[in-house]
């Protein structure tokens, strides 16, 4: 009933993705600076002379927890905002969430996810 979306995107796409998610009512998220690579491998940088390969590329990871029925809409929004059509656009993982507890109130489950104007209240 509750899912966690873990989206790994280009670092330069963070602002676009954030504002697109805000429009559909995603108000809570965590953002991490990470590095790594997927199938596209590394990139070539200029050294003092010639070039060298870098395989750990900076990426942004967004963690969002929401109700089941909002997952597809959110994924579509992320894909639209994060895409350039080139390799390296990123990847989205979806996990089941066992429970959610809001520290201040002790609310659990979906209750704990409700914020004014949040996607789950629409």
């Amino acid at each position, binding site marked *: 009933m509750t899912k966690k979306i873990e989206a790994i995107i280009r670092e330069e796409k963070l602002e676009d993705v954030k504002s697109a998610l805000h429009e559909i009512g995603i108000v809570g998220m965590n953002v991490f600076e990470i590095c790594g690579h997927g199938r596209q491998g590394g990139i*070539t*940088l*200029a*050294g*003092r*002379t*010639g*070039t*060298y*390969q*870098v395989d750990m590329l900076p990426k942004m990871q967004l963690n969002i927890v929401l109700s089941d029925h909002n997952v597809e809409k959110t994924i579509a929004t992320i894909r639209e905002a994060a895409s350039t059509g080139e390799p390296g656009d990123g990847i989205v993982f979806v996990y089941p969430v066992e429970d959610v507890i809001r520290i201040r109130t002790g609310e659990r489950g979906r209750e704990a996810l409700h914020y004014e104007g949040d996607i789950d209240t629409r």
Partner: protein
Amino acid sequence: MIDSGDTTWILVSSALVLVMTPALAFFYGGMVRKKNILSTLNLSFVMMCLISVQWLLCGYSLAFGSDVGGGLLGGLEFLGLQGVGAEPLEGMTIPYMLFAAFQMMFAIITPALITGAFVERVRFKTFLVFSLLWATLIYDPVCHWVWGPGGILGPDGLGALDFAGGTVVHMTAGFSALAFALAIGPRKGFGSQSFEPANIPYSVLGAGLLWMGWFGFNGGSALAANGTAVQALFTTNTAAAAAGLVWMILSWTDNKPSVLGIVTGAVVGLVAITPGAGFVTPLGALAIGALVAPISYYAIKFIKGRNLVDESLDVFACHGLGGLWGALATGLFAASSVGGVDGLFYGNPGQFLAQLWAALLAIGVSFGVTFVLAKVLNATMGLRVSDNEEQVGLDVSEHAERAYA
């Protein structure tokens, strides 16, 4: 007679040359991995502490004391800087102690230049002993040969020109760096991993400050605030500019115009003009700067491309070969209208040969003595940290500190 204008300029130049050592620390510090930044900065910085003391106690006397041994070494009369006071030496217009102070800054930066060869793996304790011995066994004697009274390579001997230290500073450091790199061996992962520079902005900052400091290094080497100082300042600026531009073009043809490449080019231009700064015309400096860039550039590509030796920050390619080119180019481009001596291009091939012989001697001694010294220290104290310490990084393993919390 003391001239206050000359004295002021050499006081300022001394400060400018001192700043080149922390500038070099940043130039090098930016090019290592994050876990070795502090260690690398310190290898240069601590030379200001160590060599200042060595210079006062014995270095100055060994370099500039009255000649003993037929031009090979200075005498011991200035141990502890005794007898070096406010009175100028005959023929000079600055206090003798100021000359000793100005020269001290050169003695400090030279062993700091070598550190680029063994960053990210050198044992700090061994490095301190090495630097002290290197300053005493190589720098002070070679300085005496070139600039000391009665030295075998200077005006009383072979007559080789070295305006501000192409031979004394850059060639000794560059070829010693190669010898040390061979003795200590490569960093773990050399040839299989790419060592990405952790902070190129540091290197840009360091190179900029080096460029500025070099006005004191070369301009101050006139030992007066006069036309020769201005000549040296102008040729210095020109060579740095030309070499930076040519390096930019070379790296552009290989990929993109690398910023680290542009600033490296400027530094090798500064290296190359050092011996000839007060002897060549600005157009001569333009040629010297433009031609040093491909020498160092392709040397790095050749060495790194074949993984021949992990001379980690290219000290040999930049200072050894850049210094050698500068010394030889001084014998080509020197013009008597500038500094009173003609080179090959002005009809004096003898000067070129003098430059060549002096360079070969300095190279042989620097490389040979450093290699033996490093091998002896390796057998007695160990040159390298352990594999584990190297993997953790020298900031934590050698200094118990982190560059960034």
